[in-house]
């Protein structure tokens, strides 16, 4: 891919304070501040151009000033089988080696295959350096089949990033999708778990989701998604607190960086959301 070369790294996130209108020309983040994308993906290899697509993702992250990306690979076929999630996680492990220090891996599993899922998580986290668990829409977050997965994540001290959406007009292919309410229910059962509710900017009615998570203080919320609705970050920070927000992109990098740039928050709060909160989660792992 042609490298742009004309836009200095950090020009985008580095001008957050000025562009966000918070009254300071001083860059929001200094050179030592780390920006971590808590929710992204490398490509499934059924896509013919997966290598180029992964490279483009890293190139865009380079240009936008994103230091690290926490990624998973999901199979296109639902429900996921042990074969399909093991294959994805193997490709994820190879991705971590292709982009050392840039890409972290979430271990994706289908909780319905309890024994295989638990073995896969333990192996990938303890031996493969994976940083968390990714759950999609095979089961709702509040279903008992998910509980052993969360218990293992608690034991390993890794987060569980859970797909979520609250839409009245739900796409038919996702009958068991979770929403913020299901995540809050799971958090009440396991308050010590580090649960991440996925993509507030790609998960339907974001006001509903933020309110549903208000009284579930152990649930984090990632900011990723393609929607660029004004005010979402400010409302999430006001209701949940900036300590519970994690910057993410979910393959929508310019939208996600722009959203953070436009949010009218203090420099300190943006620094937490952009990387410090996720760094704190990563530092809790039992295996470093």
């Amino acid at each position: 891919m042609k490298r742009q070369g004309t836009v200095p790294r950090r020009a985008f996130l580095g001008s957050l304070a000025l562009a966000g209108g918070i009254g300071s020309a001083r860059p929001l983040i200094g050179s030592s501040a780390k920006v971590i994308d808590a929710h992204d993906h490398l490509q499934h290899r059924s896509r013919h151009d997966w290598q180029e697509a992964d490279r483009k993702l890293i190139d865009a992250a380079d240009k936008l000033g994103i230091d690290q990306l926490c990624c998973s690979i999901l199979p296109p076929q639902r429900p996921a089988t042990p074969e399909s999630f093991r294959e994805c996680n193997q490709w994820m492990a190879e991705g971590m080696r292709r982009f050392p220090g840039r890409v972290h891996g979430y271990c994706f599993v289908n909780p319905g295959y309890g024994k295989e899922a638990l073995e896969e998580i333990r192996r990938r986290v303890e031996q493969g350096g994976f940083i968390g668990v990714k759950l999609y829409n095979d089961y709702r977050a509040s279903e008992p089949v998910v509980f052993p997965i969360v218990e293992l994540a608690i034991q390993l001290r890794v987060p569980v990033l859970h797909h979520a959406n609250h839409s009245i007009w739900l796409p038919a292919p996702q009958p068991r999708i979770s929403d913020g309410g299901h995540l809050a229910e799971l958090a009440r059962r396991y308050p010590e778990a580090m649960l991440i509710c996925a993509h507030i900017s790609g998960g339907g009615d974001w006001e509903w989701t933020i309110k549903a998570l208000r009284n579930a203080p152990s649930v984090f919320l990632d900011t990723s998604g393609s929607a660029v609705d004004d005010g979402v970050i400010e409302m999430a920070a006001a209701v949940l607190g900036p300590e519970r927000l994690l910057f993410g992109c979910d393959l929508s990098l310019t939208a996600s960086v722009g959203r953070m740039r436009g949010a009218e928050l203090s420099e300190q709060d943006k620094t937490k959301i952009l990387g410090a909160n996720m760094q704190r989660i990563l530092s809790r792992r039992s295996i470093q």
Partner: protein
Amino acid sequence: MIDVSAHLGHFAFLRLRNNTASKLLALMDRKRIDKAVVASAAAITYRNAQAGNEDLAAEVRPHRDRLISFAVLNPVYAGWEDDLKICHEEFGIKGMRLYPRWHNYRLTDPRCLELIHAAAQRGLVVSIPIRVEDRRHGSWLADIPDVGYEEIAALMRAAPKAKFILANGSGFVGSPLGRKNNGLPPNYVIDISLLRSELDNEIGQLLANLGEDRVVLGTGMPFHYPDPAFVKLELLDVAEAVKEKIRHGNAARLLGI
């Protein structure tokens, strides 16, 4: 910079910040936007859209140097001919916005074509927002689909002398509207508010397929943060002269300002 896709007023299903003239202008100052095309957000759900146009006219009147009015017109509602005349001759609109899914008609309905021909005769630009909100966010009261690209393409063919802005959409490259040598008249531009310049880089593809005069800056404020549009432009790997056309030149030519 000229933003072709802004709004004023209240929207039925979401509280908007920065939706008065003074607040929007303050935001434009912070973001260094010189001028913005605005239309009434309330008129999208009013039965009589003209009430929203009247409110907009009053709000914009002291700021016509920076806020460019578009009317929301509904060709299947009584009296649109009178509304068009008043909006143009008294309110000084430069164009109009159509919401065919919200107002329940097809763009190729003869009544819509009549409105578009009347607008073209007055030299007005016609803006078609593909969506207002992301469909995933929709209220339980209304499931409003996006405007279909085949339907828009049919309108482009049916009204080759009219000038169109296609706003707040994405996925044009996979449709006739975004393909190279698509056989459509070059009578439309596309705003970047929901396009991407990373990964699949739809903005770059549209520039290559349609030409550098056919893409314009739109932010969607105050529904949207304006900043994502700027980040997309900054990341876009094209000459600065092309970016300047997107930021200003193409819209200025289209609007005659």
